[in-house]
């Protein structure tokens, strides 16, 4: 891969990049090249290694092996500021990390200059404003320069971040999932800017897994999966091929039947998550594992939190076992038999400093204690059973959580909520940062125990949904847009189209191939 689609020699070239965290090899022999005036889309599922790659390019992390050149010169930034100095700017996915919320838009646009000390000690607001206006003129924007960044909408903040990156007139611009929290119209504005930059000869590395972005912008697509480059696609672009290369062939569940529910547990009626989203309804049945999939930021977590008593719908109602259900907090939800393992186990589930047994028993201490005193031996006994059931790899139930691998930590989190019978179990991104083996163990255990309860799993990766679920709901723009049953008749391309938010736009000819991929 030495030459981009434009035919010009590449401005950023990466060869043989390697990076590991402990045992975990996150990037393996990655080659990548971007040319001036080209939009190279890098596709990859969660945990594929995209963010590590971006961090290395941006100078946040250093590679273990490999070579990078920028504009023909060796490039190995030790700090982010070195990258900027060499002509490479990155707009990170977390927009709020890239802006200082309490400063004005103008001050934010000039942040790099202010921080690098290139401005001299005294910097008049008027001069700042003038320079800020020049910068935003590059993009033809008219942002409210005097407003604090915290007061302007998210989409505008992102433009501020991009503007700021462009203030340094980079040769290479890296955009990390820039549309993940933008509406269609806001995204359209961004696309216009990207095209303009492309016309000026900026090389753009665009990281996303959103199909609409890819269709609109990509000159070339490279897919990353499990730390390896798994495919390169040049025009005419084979989008479905790229999706398959990104996700891999969906894993077939061996020997287990797709189940259908026995009786309704939770039903949502005309629920609206936000004032501007469309209402939706669905029912979850006992004995069935339902996955909700959809891109990041489409409202999956919000839906889960609402069911778990952490927030309220704008309108509509919920029924649990036929009775109206409005939990006032998590405690009430748990009392009613609705359990949830939240997204991002480190913040939402794991108590550092507690051993495995204590982490497992946390929600059910009342059942593990007599007259307020915790029955430690009963607690440990129960923990040993969970460890066996989920094949948690550890020395024993008194191990500290910090000694466990990510997958085993996640098993503890899931095991916590499997320890007691529930009516509905919600798992928000249970496979995040979990290796294949642990993922299989968790999915198996979920399906083994699914008999008497309804199970709801929220995942942004479609193959995860396929692995665990009997039924897949698709969420887009804070509403449910698709309802699929896995097994015979499952229409993957339709699901992908629903996920990508452009129903009906999927090319017809690719359908057969995808169907075969789905098995």
């Amino acid at each position, binding site marked *: 891969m030495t030459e981009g689609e434009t035919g010009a020699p590449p401005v950023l070239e990466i060869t043989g990049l390697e990076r590991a965290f402990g045992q975990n090899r996150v990037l393996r022999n990655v080659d990548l090249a971007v040319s001036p005036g080209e939009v190279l889309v890098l596709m990859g599922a969660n945990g594929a290694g995209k963010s590590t790659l971006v961090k290395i390019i941006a100078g946040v992390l250093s590679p273990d092996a490999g070579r990078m050149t920028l504009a023909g010169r060796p490039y190995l930034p030790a700090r982010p500021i070195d990258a900027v100095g060499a002509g490479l700017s990155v707009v990170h996915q977390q927009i709020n990390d890239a802006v200082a919320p309490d400063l004005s838009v103008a001050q934010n646009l000039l942040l790099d200059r202010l921080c690098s000390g290139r401005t001299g000690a005294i910097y008049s607001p008027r001069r700042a404003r003038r320079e800020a206006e020049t910068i935003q003129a590059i993009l033809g924007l008219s942002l409210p320069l005097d407003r604090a960044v915290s007061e302007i909408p998210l989409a505008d903040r992102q433009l501020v971040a991009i503007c700021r990156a462009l203030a340094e007139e980079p040769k290479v611009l890296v955009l990390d999932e820039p549309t993940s929290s933008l509406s269609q119209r806001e995204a359209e504005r961004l696309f216009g800017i990207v095209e303009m930059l492309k016309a000026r000869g900026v090389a753009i590395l665009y990281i996303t897994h959103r199909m609409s972005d890819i269709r609109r912008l990509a000159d070339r697509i490279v897919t990353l999966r499990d730390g390896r480059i798994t495919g390169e696609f040049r025009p005419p672009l084979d989008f479905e091929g790229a999706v398959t290369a990104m996700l891999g062939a969906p894993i077939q569940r061996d020997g287990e039947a797709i189940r259908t529910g026995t009786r309704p547990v939770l039903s949502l009626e005309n629920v609206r998550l936000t004032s501007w989203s469309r209402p939706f309804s669905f029912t979850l049945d006992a004995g069935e594992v339902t996955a909700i999939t959809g891109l990041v930021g489409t409202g999956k977590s919000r839906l889960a939190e609402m069911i778990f008593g952490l927030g309220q719908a704008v309108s509509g109602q919920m029924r649990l076992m036929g009775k109206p259900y409005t939990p006032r907090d*998590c405690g009430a939800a748990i009392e009613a038999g609705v359990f949830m393992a939240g997204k991002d186990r480190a913040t*939402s*589930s794991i108590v550092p*400093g507690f051993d495995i047994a204590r982490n497992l028993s*946390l*929600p059910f*201490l009342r059942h593990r204690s007599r007259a307020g*005193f915790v029955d430690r031996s009963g607690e440990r006994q129960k923990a040993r059973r969970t460890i066996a059931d989920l094949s948690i790899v550890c020395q024993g139930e008194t191990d500290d959580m910090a000694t466990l691998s990510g997958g085993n930590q996640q098993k503890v989190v899931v095991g*916590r909520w499997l320890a007691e019978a529930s009516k509905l179990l919600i798992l928000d991104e249970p496979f995040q940062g979990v290796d294949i083996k642990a993922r299989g163990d968790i999915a198996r255990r979920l399906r083994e125990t699914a008999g008497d309860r309804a199970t709801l799993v929220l995942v942004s990766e479609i193959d995860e949904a396929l692995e665990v679920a009997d039924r897949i709901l698709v969420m887009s723009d804070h509403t449910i847009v698709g309802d699929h049953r896995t097994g015979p008749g499952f229409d993957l391309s339709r699901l992908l189209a629903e996920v990508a938010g452009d129903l009906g736009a999927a090319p017809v000819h690719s359908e057969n191939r995808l169907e075969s991929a789905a098995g």
Partner: protein
Amino acid sequence: MTLAVRDLSIRYGFFVLLVALALFFYAAQPAFMSVRSLVFVFQSVAITAILALGVTGTLVVGGFDLSIGSVAASSMMAASYAMVIWGWGTTETVLLCIAFGLLAGLLNGLIIVYGRVPDLLATLGTMFLLLGLQLVPTAGRSIARGMTLPDSTTATGSFDPSFLALGRARLFDVLPVSVVVMLALAVAIFVFLEFTRWGRVMYAIGSNEQASRLAGAPVARYKIAAYMISGAFASIGGILLAARVGRGDVSSGNNLLLDAVAAALIGFAVLGAAKPNAFGTLIGALFVGMLLQGLTMMNAPYYTQDAVKGGVLVVALLFTFSLTRRAGR
């Protein structure tokens, strides 16, 4: 092998230090080693330790309580006021003070939980508030029997002998009541934190508040309760102080606060717990008490004492944060 040495030093290093120190003082001043001496170490730290045990509760939920010193000082004033000016009996006075402590804790908790004011700032505010408020009823005077009130009448009440006994009497002629109270409270809070589900949830909240909330714990109520425990303990400390001194002294209680916090923080290092714990707090308080006791017996000047206290605290914190962390890795 080296690992075992490090483990042992983390777990028992502090006790070795404690014993070594005791032996050192014994060599320097034989009067140091006697039952009375030991009892005295306990007595000298009783009030500080009670405050420290209370603040341990707030440390466990990941908070902090800067107001304990002024709660104790105010409680002392309240006790004196109730007895000397209103002529109340012992029981009512004690109940009043504890109720006052609970109320101060409730106020702290509400400001922190519902007002979303950071704990240090909220309790700092309460601290100042109480420092000022405690002076209002007597217009800044200390309270003693026969005192002249702001309206130039003379107070008629006096400290009930049974109240004074709280600070002065000895059980079996050996154990001062204040020490008994300290030990009882230490055992109570130790059992509560280590063995009950409520204590367990408090530790969980301190370690990961969001996870505890998602596990169904009523986090707000637990936090408020922790500050109420802290307030109640501080007010009990104030009662004992009033009973020992026998008057309502105008004082800030800031030294009580600092000593109590130091004891609780030193407690982190005991047994390599690396977290707030009641047993460690008690040992921490005793350690400081023994040190000061020994230094005083050896005629060390007063300013050495603060320096030594500070030194111990720094060493204990290093124990906690650098040695234990490294071992955990």
